[in-house]
């Protein structure tokens, strides 16, 4: 069974299990007076398994199964837990500051997880399509190297072109110094770099042969820098969603613990 079929099989199985569970719980609504308590405990168990995936990643030396398997379980259980969350709420909006905050935390954690799943499915393909293979941690060094090369080309002592030097100082220096166009790369827009390349093309009209050669080299460097920014933007997006997902997960668990205390301390067994 190849990877796609296996994922499809597990996906369908999880969906069927979730639907059957939801229908069963809904049918049992009257028969189970403590419906909210039981679905709450099931939800907590699901959230606990989802949370310890992060712990498992920190303990790679323990024989706890393959990380890939854990990830698949994490994804399917995440979807199931979201459905369980709606069942726990009985498909109604929560009331009160605490419960609304708790619900929003859950929504943000689930939502960021879904965004992360989407990124991890889409962005690597886009990176592969764009070509090149860059290690994220080495991007600053590569950017620095490109900047040095562009500076040497534009401002080096052997350069006698004021036009290129001025253009570099005004337009290219900041482009090579920092990462650029994060959001444009995320939405796959090339408008900014095309505008810069068009300006370089315009510059060719006022250049002699030597300068044209330099401009061609600069154009190649701009393209390389843009490719580097593209890799940085997409790889950063692949990491940044975790900045929402993981911290809020722990916040959610703290609020959940208080929720349990409040439910049992205040409800007095009320249905």
């Amino acid at each position, binding site marked *: 069974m190849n990877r796609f079929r296996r994922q499809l099989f597990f996906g369908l199985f999880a969906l069927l299990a979730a639907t059957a569970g939801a229908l069963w719980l809904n049918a049992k*609504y*009257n028969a*189970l*007076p*403590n419906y909210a*308590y*039981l679905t709450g*405990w099931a939800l907590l168990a699901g959230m606990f398994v989802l949370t310890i995936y992060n712990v498992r990643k920190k303990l790679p030396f323990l024989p706890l199964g393959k990380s890939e398997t854990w990830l698949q379980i994490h994804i399917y259980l995440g979807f199931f837990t979201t459905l369980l969350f709606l069942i726990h709420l009985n498909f109604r909006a*929560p*009331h*009160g*500051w*605490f*419960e609304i905050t708790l619900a929003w935390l859950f929504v943000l954690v689930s939502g960021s997880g879904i965004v992360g799943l989407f990124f991890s499915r889409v962005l690597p393909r886009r990176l592969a399509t764009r070509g090149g293979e860059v*290690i*994220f*941690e*080495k991007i*600053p*060094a*590569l*950017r*620095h*190297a490109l900047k040095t090369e562009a500076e040497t080309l534009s401002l080096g002592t052997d350069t006698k072109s004021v036009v290129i030097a001025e253009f570099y100082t005004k337009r290219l220096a900041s482009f090579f110094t920092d990462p650029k166009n994060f959001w444009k790369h995320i939405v796959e827009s090339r408008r900014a770099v095309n505008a810069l390349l068009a300006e370089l093309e315009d510059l060719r009209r006022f250049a002699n042969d030597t300068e044209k050669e330099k401009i061609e080299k600069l154009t190649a460097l701009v393209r390389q820098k843009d490719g580097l920014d593209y890799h940085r933007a997409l790889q950063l997006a692949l*990491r940044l969603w*975790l*900045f929402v997902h*993981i*911290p*809020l997960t*722990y*916040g959610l668990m*703290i*609020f959940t613990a*208080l929720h*349990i*205390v*409040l*439910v*049992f*301390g*205040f*409800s*007095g*067994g*009320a*249905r």
Partner: protein
Amino acid sequence: MSEQLPAPDFDAQNYARPNQNYICGHACDGNACRLGPDQKGNCRATAECKPVLKLKEGETKGRWVCTRTGGECEFGPLPDGSCCKPIPKCSPVPTLRLWRGRITLAVVAASCGVLLVILGNPPWRNNFISPGVVSDPHSGAAFAALASTNHLNQSCGACHVAGNSGPNPMIHAALRADPGVFDLKKLALAKAEEPTAIDSSCLKCHSGRNVHQPNAPQISCSFCHAEHQGKVIAATTDASCSFCHGDVAKMAVVPRYNNPPPPVIHHFADDHPQFKFITEKLRDPDSLKFNHALHLTGTTIPKLPGGEKLDCVFCHQPDATGALMKPVAFEKNCRVCHSLQFDPETPQLQLPHGNVDFVSAYLRSLPKQYLDLAMKLGSADANDFAAKKLAGLRMQFGDGEALEQRVFFSTATFGPEAQIGTLSGATRSLFPGCAYCHEVKTSAAGAAQITKPVQVERWLAQAKFNHAKHLNVACATCHDAVHSKDTADILLPARETCAVCHSPRGGVADTCAECHTYHKPLLAR
């Protein structure tokens, strides 16, 4: 355990260490040192080599030798044994992983801090943890006064064990809860009818839980009534009613005094039983004789004084609430057509209505009535006027006894007996006699006795109904009055008629609570 070897193209000189907390500050220049920072973010760079002291035979001081990889440097170690080429220290940069950890810690700390601050401040705490607005009956000044009377806490503590307490008592209350926090078995096997701990809070003010039928099990208050759902306590849902009424097993064991068990009901349009007045063929016990069909469709029915046609609304007027109809009254609704004129030639004199004795007394005082009338009309000879009128009556009916018998017992509308009240143009209808509309009996002493009409106020006594909510429906849609000739007909709709609208297909609410109230009236408890 097999040792994992690095890939052949692994550049150990340029290892980026993404899984560590810090990377070399020179990494962004492409000059990261091989050693890298320590776990706390301190640069570990020292010098290009670590000189070694070599002692030749007989020497005491020895000589420092450069150990730089790639060959000795030009100047060699300094006299104190340190390298002459120290590596400039960098400011290690936190990795994304460390930032994520810091943000996680910040979120955890902020969550704990915010919760502790809020839970430690009673006014904030109660507002924050309340799962919704408390209903009006359980909040406000009136509730506080009642709670004070009952020596209860006037806020959350009136109902909740952990109410108005800080984090510590809350945790203690949670750990002492019944069912317990981890008592999953009890939670799963609990039955709805079992009282819960919170019910005891309800009973501090509400007297008992015997609020439904006497043979019904006592269920937990919270099973039907969800608090903190808004200013009005949420209406009981069909699910709560169906818990018993939709369960064959539960209904089968309900004792019903030799009657069959109550029917199982799921939805009004599907399996709600037909109304009893139809299944038991009940008849209206009213003794008044009234023909709805004649009054609504009869060709002989005259127009009302204003020229309008007689319709339902003329007699059936809503009460002050609009929910029910006022009783039909003779003076207001009947007299406009049905005058009680007994002397055809004297329309000014009419019989009183409502009391047999008054009618008898009136008839026996006719000489006085005629004299008063003559005085009122300004007749020159009142005695002569009265004598002529009485003589006319004697000619028509004989003596006064016969007149009284005719007034009370005659039902004839044609022939000589129907002459009472007949005067073309003067009166608008016949007055055949009281018995035409009323049930008139004779007492042992021979006096007339009229059975008092009974207008049933509510036929479906266990259901609520509001005419005001049904004003967009024509009367005839529900009340088949145009085909009813008999007073005994109960002109109420069948269940199917209601279900035309009150069903999922009709689109109008069809919940149990729409018509029924779970709690029996206080006096019946």
